[in-house]
């Protein structure tokens, strides 16, 4: 009798472990930003690009705003730049750019070469302040509403599909 119970227990344990492994296979262990969606952004302060010690802060977000983290050394930022320009031309969304770990002269040259889609530009020389946004590489882009709630986060360069998504969110 106890032998039978032991066998059933072993079998149950085997299937239990199998189920856990099977469920774990479905989990994506990589970093996903879904946790940030719906959260209010933390108070932040960046020095403005050529702003004579003026600061860019959370108080500058008073309507639906796109916050884009970029740098002149970042090749994918060049690829997405045309979509930011298009957004600037076709919508009235406020666009804030955060120049990430960059040389300010190079950043200026980048904007002269590819045009400036940003209403305001902040500078993060060491990347510390950007951690408040959960940044782990650039480019990354957020859509934040007037109440400073994160509506969407895009990791990597924006593409045509993302552009359309942004338009849909703005027009909601």
């Amino acid at each position: 009798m106890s032998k039978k119970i032991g066998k059933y227990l072993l079998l149950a344990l085997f299937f239990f472990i199998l189920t856990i492994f099977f469920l774990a296979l479905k989990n994506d262990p990589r970093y996903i930003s879904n946790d940030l969606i719906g959260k209010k952004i933390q108070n932040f302060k960046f020095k403005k690009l050529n702003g004579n010690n003026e600061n860019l802060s959370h108080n500058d977000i008073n309507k639906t705003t796109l916050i884009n983290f970029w740098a002149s050394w970042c090749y994918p930022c060049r690829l997405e730049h045309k979509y930011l320009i298009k957004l600037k031309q076709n919508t009235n969304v406020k666009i804030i750019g955060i120049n990430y770990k960059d040389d300010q002269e190079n950043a200026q040259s980048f904007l002269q070469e590819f045009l400036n889609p940003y209403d305001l530009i902040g500078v993060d020389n060491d990347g510390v302040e950007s951690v408040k946004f959960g940044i782990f590489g650039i480019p990354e882009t957020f859509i934040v509403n007037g109440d400073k709630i994160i509506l969407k986060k895009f990791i990597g360069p924006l593409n045509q599909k993302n552009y359309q998504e942004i338009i849909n969110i703005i027009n909601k």
Partner: protein
Amino acid sequence: MKKIFFIYLFFSLNSLTVQANEMSDLEQKIFKNIRCLVCQGQSVADSNSEFSQTIKLVVKDQIGKGRSETEIYDFLVDKYGEWIIYDPLFSTSNFLLWFLPYFILLVGGLFIFFILKKKNNN
């Protein structure tokens, strides 16, 4: 007078060194428990990537502001999710992970105990 000054200087420098070591021990402990999100299986302590360098600065900054180890983990988990911490935080969704090994050990121990007891009786 000179002697007293040197003794004072020695103890001041010594206590500063101890404080600095304590600080770096805590930093090291935290760095080792934070996953480098852009690396393959490396902690922030093992990595020299841009991400790790930034996180190291953030941790130093937070320690400087007097935040505790748990508060620093909470801050990073809030921004990057629980994946960033190697040592998982205790929660209702992972309590099995914490207690299952003990449970299995207990059940296994009882199982062996009863088998041996039965053998002895026979």
